[in-house]
């Protein structure tokens, strides 16, 4: 699955192994794989964070991720690209997002991976609500 939302915890490294084992990327053709994993931390904006709810817009979120992936595949000579993201309740230490791209050479891989992450952070319809030691708050905006 090139684009997927995970309501339950997922293992990004196993996901990549399975994607490749399933022929997601053409063996012998790709020479460079760049991957990024965003993981929930137990600390944010000066406060301890106990848990998090990841809200999203069913339908638009998937469409948007597919659109970013398609744009990256178009702008760089990629053999494959993958975007997985958590939704729902997340605990500190849980991976939240996995972006991976496969290409012949490393420049395209690094650039495309970064492009997807930056767009995802700035435009993909997700919203984080943090549970602090006392109370909850919606994260205002992404850095």
């Amino acid at each position, binding site marked *: 699955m090139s684009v997927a939302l995970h309501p339950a915890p997922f293992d990004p490294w196993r996901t990549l192994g399975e994607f490749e084992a399933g022929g997601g990327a053409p063996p012998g053709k790709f020479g460079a794989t760049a991957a990024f994993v*965003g993981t929930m931390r137990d600390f944010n904006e000066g406060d301890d964070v106990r848990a998090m709810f*990841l*809200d*999203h*817009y069913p*339908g*638009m979120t998937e*469409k948007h991720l597919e659109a970013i992936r398609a744009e990256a595949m178009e702008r760089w000579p990629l053999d494959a690209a993958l975007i997985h*993201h958590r939704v729902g309740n997340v605990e500190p230490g849980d991976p*939240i*997002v996995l972006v991976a791209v496969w290409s012949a050479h490393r420049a395209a891989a690094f650039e495309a991976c970064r492009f997807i*992450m930056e767009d*995802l*952070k*700035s*435009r*993909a*319809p*997700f*919203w*984080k*609500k943090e549970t602090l030691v006392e109370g909850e708050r*919606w*994260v*205002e*905006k*992404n850095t």
Partner: protein
Amino acid sequence: MLDSSAMVYVKFFASLREQLGTGELQLPLRPGMRVEDVWNSAAGQPLPEHMLMARNQEYVQADAEVRDGDEVAFFPPVTGG
């Protein structure tokens, strides 16, 4: 004459949904209606400058036209990844 069957499906997400106390509502489509007009009818408060808008699950600006059966969504800046 108002086309009584013409409707607009409105959605609110994240902190906005909590503030307004609802995530979804429908309202009758008025001729020449734009996304901004949908907000004014549905939210009962001025459209905040940072608010993001989508029509049929694609980003639009406040002046985008709205047609029968369109899904119009409003949500605060995204914080995913």
